[in-house]
């Protein structure tokens, strides 16, 4: 009986414990962390990362990886800002930015599925191309955007929830639905688990794989619009380093690189962990330059902790 309770405790994703500990630690060391405004703030900051990380999770489930998602995020923001600058209505420009993300995803998908490039090479190359394109089209500057719509997307409140958080949660819900109830989700899992099995059922696995990257691209595009709205500008570097956060959130959430194991649901825990870390460091006044190293260390530590707990609890095979 005691053993059973023990097992149930262990079946809670280990990362939840870290999140809990962080809350407590920050509560002590960063006064103001628990204020309502700061908690909302964390949510708003976490929203674009959640959207991005969902895309990352989908790609990783197919046994791939998207190293370009951070740059795609920035690129979509730049595209959006440039469209607005050229007089395109803001709503349409947002759609344009998202579409741009989708196109980047499409190219990634074609490189991986049709040209059989290893995903990390394909997406790394894509990231380089997009960085160049972004720098050229903006001369490396920030493109400012001013519009009341942006304010609504960033600060608006609907149903008592701040817009960025609401958007992220709606997207999370939609993707969870896609994963559980549609061919898309089943394809994603099967591609990671045993693509040959999927092929032999008559499915077109190239198209399925391309679709996974397209969805990831679209999500990166949406994340890009969220970020651009918050900063009221488009800058190619605005997603610099976010790829790492998105991938880390996925792994911390329990999605593994092997055999299509995991899911989008737990990625939110990884996102919360990273968002709290960032926010706590800011509230505690740790200078930005130290934050990179600290974040990297803590995220790696969290992943190691996670793997060790899983191994101990026997939910993970191997030694």
């Amino acid at each position, binding site marked *: 009986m005691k053993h059973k309770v023990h097992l149930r405790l262990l079946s809670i994703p280990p990362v939840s414990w870290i999140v809990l500990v962080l809350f407590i630690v920050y509560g002590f060391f960063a006064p103001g962390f628990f204020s309502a405004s700061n908690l909302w703030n964390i949510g708003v900051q976490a929203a674009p990362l959640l959207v991005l990380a969902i895309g990352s999770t989908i790609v990783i489930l197919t046994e791939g990886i998207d190293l370009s998602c951070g740059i795609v995020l920035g690129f979509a923001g730049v595209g959006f800002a440039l469209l607005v600058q050229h007089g395109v209505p803001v709503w349409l420009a947002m759609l344009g930015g998202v579409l741009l993300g989708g196109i980047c995803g499409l190219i990634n998908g074609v490189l991986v599925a049709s040209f059989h490039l290893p995903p990390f090479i394909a997406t790394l190359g894509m990231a380089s191309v997009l960085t160049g394109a972004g720098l050229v089209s903006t001369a490396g500057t920030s493109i400012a955007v001013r519009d009341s719509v942006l304010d609504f997307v960033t600060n608006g409140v609907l149903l008592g929830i701040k817009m960025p958080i609401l958007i992220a949660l709606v997207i999370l819900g939609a993707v969870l639905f896609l994963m559980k109830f549609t*061919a898309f989700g089943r394809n994603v899992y*099967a591609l990671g688990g*045993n693509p040959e099995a999927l*092929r*032999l059922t008559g*499915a077109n696995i190239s198209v399925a794989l391309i679709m996974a990257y397209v969805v990831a691209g679209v999500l990166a595009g949406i994340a890009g619009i969220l970020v651009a709205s918050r900063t009221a500008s488009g800058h190619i570097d605005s997603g610099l380093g976010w790829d790492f956060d998105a991938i880390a959130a996925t792994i911390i959430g329990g999605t593994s690189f092997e*055999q*299509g194991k995991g899911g989008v649901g737990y990625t939110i825990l990884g996102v919360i962990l990273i968002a709290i870390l960032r926010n706590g460091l800011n509230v505690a006044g740790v200078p930005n330059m130290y934050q990179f190293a600290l974040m990297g260390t803590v995220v790696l530590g969290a992943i190691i902790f996670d793997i060790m707990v899983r191994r101990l609890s026997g939910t993970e095979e191997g030694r």
Partner: protein
Amino acid sequence: MEEIEIKTGETDELSLSITGESTVNQAPLLQARGISKEFPGVRALENVDFDVYPGEVHILIGENGAGKSTLGKILMGAYRHDSGEILLEGKPIKISRPIEALRYGIGGVHQEFMLVPWLNVAQNIFLNREPRRWGFVVDHQRMHEESRRLLASLDVHIDTTQPLKHFGTAIQQMVELSKVMATNPRVLILDEPTAVLTEREVECLFKRIKEMREQGVAIIFISHRLQEIREIGDRVTVLRDGKNAASGLMSEFSNDDLVRIMVGRNISQLYPRNRRPPGEEALRLKGISVRGGPKDVDLVVHKGEIVGICGLVGSGRTELATAIFGIGQIEKGEVTLFGSKATPRSPAQMVRKGVGLIPEDRKTLGLTMKFSVAWNVVVASLRLHFPYFLVSYSKVVRMAEKFVKDLRIATPSVSRQVKFLSGGNQQKVALAKWLNTESRLLIFDEPTRGIDVGAKVEIHTLMDNLVQKDIAILMISSDLREVLGMSDVVYVMYQGRINGKFSHEEATQDKVASLMLGVVRPNEA
């Protein structure tokens, strides 16, 4: 044995009496004519003819590498054939992709599992064929109901919401079968469906197959287990080296005939042993207990001797073998290796001490499937042959080529990836790997599981040659005949303990089997 021709008249009709019970009077449902298929460096099929009628079970047998799985895969659309034609009800059809075969009602189970480990049981059964609501939303409830129904027809009752990974290979095989049954195939192709099933499960499967035969399904059954094909087969076709070797009613062939046709030569001696007096002690276990495994095991292996351990799956035999090899935790007891005390801590240490392990599962543990033959041969002995850090590729190739020649490994070249070799040849590569380390004690875990008769004899001959060279062999096997035929000393394991020990002369099938099954206590045997 003369080849039996099935005459097909101008109308493509023929009357064929099957097993004296049912009579079939139709054209073949599926017919393959002059099928050839070449893989890089290997001619897998050459001008092969094959047909199957509705309401019959047509057995396709042959040694590993004879091309039977390749033919099955071509008919299922997993491979494309280079030449020849496929006819459905007499009309030529094109099958170049799995979806096309499925549209024609041809479905099957591949030898390798085609399952997605982290999807649940029902999702696997209905992969890409999920029942839908409103055209796109998966109807999970119906999917689980249907899955339970399909599995129940095979007498399997499990929670279909669990990830498939949580189940053993037998259940996974049943899921595979349910998956194909869900498509209601007109032609059912089963490639070695019983390899991982227990006797009771095989019974359920055969019952189901017979039902489907009654319903007029044309069934192609690929196997090399002679006993079972006799129970279920109506007709048989033997392939050898990618060509038709014989074809006819099952009743026209004796098992000996079939083996002879498959192998293409007489098996003069099934278990070739030249017994000799044992040499010095190579391995002595005294009171060994392994964590979560065997208890209080005493065992001795001499040089130039084959010691067989037989026991059921789960009796602790594999755990014992891996513990000697440094995997797993020895809790108490003493290991003496070549006269000196040894505490197995890691495989690396045991390899240095001259121990080699040829594991049960060569695909994941024994070999690196994506590596070439050459690299697999040297991978365990790089430090031995290349002590100065740099590896000479030409020397690697020379070593590998020598083994290919000595062990008669059928491969077009040493640079071929081992995943393309047949099971028997893979096992030879696994063996070559340890011979190359100059191991003096070899542990074989199920040395001939899943490989065909001809290759079995070859592996056994190689084992005999090794003991002639003073190598000590510890062999684990659940094949009783193999243990009795090959071993000089037989140990029986039951529930983690050594339950009996026999010399070659004392050991009889009855004595060993009853101890192995725990029917009698050691002192009664």
